[in-house]
């Protein structure tokens, strides 16, 4: 029961983050919101694994959190490189 509610709360967080991605005024702000969306997704996978009692799902979460970090670092460098060109 509580697990379902937690999943619903995370869905709300994800929806707000998605609004943030769409309405972001700059590339940096879009990346921040997108990173947050990935973290919410990772949390959702963890809660879903509990709901279904399937620990095998958790390995997906490891990959998502790795990709979120690498993605953010790459975009930070892209924003910097763009600044230097200007």
């Amino acid at each position: 029961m509580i697990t379902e509610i937690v999943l619903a709360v995370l869905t709300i967080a994800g929806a707000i983050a998605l609004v943030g991605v769409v309405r972001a005024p700059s590339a940096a702000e879009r990346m921040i919101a997108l990173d947050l969306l990935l973290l919410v997704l990772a949390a959702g996978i963890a809660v879903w694994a509990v709901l279904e009692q399937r620990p095998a799902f958790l390995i997906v979460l490891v990959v998502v959190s790795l990709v979120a970090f690498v993605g953010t670092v790459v975009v930070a460098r892209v924003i910097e490189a763009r600044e230097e060109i200007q």
Partner: protein
Amino acid sequence: MIGDVLGSILMAIGAMLMVVSALGVLRFPGPVARLHAATKAASAGLALVCLGAGLALGGPALPLMVLVALFQLLTAPIAGHLLGRAAHDADDGAAGRLVRDDLGDLPRPSAPGPSGEAAPFPWGSWLLLTVAWTMLWGDLSVGTVLGGAAASVVVVAVVRPGERRIGVRPLGLVRLLGTFTTALVRGTIDVAAEVLTRDDSGIRQAIVRVAVPGMSREALVVTALAVTLTPGSLAVEIDVAEECLFVHVLHYDEDATDDDIRLIAERARDALGTRVSRA
């Protein structure tokens, strides 16, 4: 049973932190302020959800989830720091939002090489990799540990991490963790209250230059990470040569801000004096 209840509570708190963080990202003014909401509350939220899920599932899932939570708490400040400097430089409206800006148009400082002599074999990295491997498998059998140790030797040989001898003082480390946890909890509550009450009057953004003399390179980096993970402050630049940090703060206070950051810095210096700097 206890694991289920505790797990549910942790997951619920974590999910609520993520909602707060998402609202903050939507509402805070300017990219660096938004970064404050995204790097701390969301990472703490994910860490709590992971620990909760690990407790609820039990077995090999628990060490795996602890590993993910630790990884998140380590990488969030690194990503936040990188994105923070880039976002500040690219943000044309930054000057209008900052009450004080010590960074201004300063060029990026050059990073001097590491201090101290290189260790002959990076035992620390090797040990960390082996522990991470064992936690990923979630099983403490002889085969797993030996396999992890062997794989770690290969990784260390290929990557060759330039590990330096760092002297760690256990008591100092405990005090650093204590200071840090207090700041984390206090700051999270502050930011959550701000987001939920929609009261922006307390937000006074500023970039402050904090001098942290007498620190090794490694202690300086640890300080920057701890400062960044603490809600309300984000280290946007580290200048090793000048021995200072440039910290973006959400609630600038002429009297208190410098001292708060310097306290974390001093604790980091107590925890991680390198052998070279102590000699």
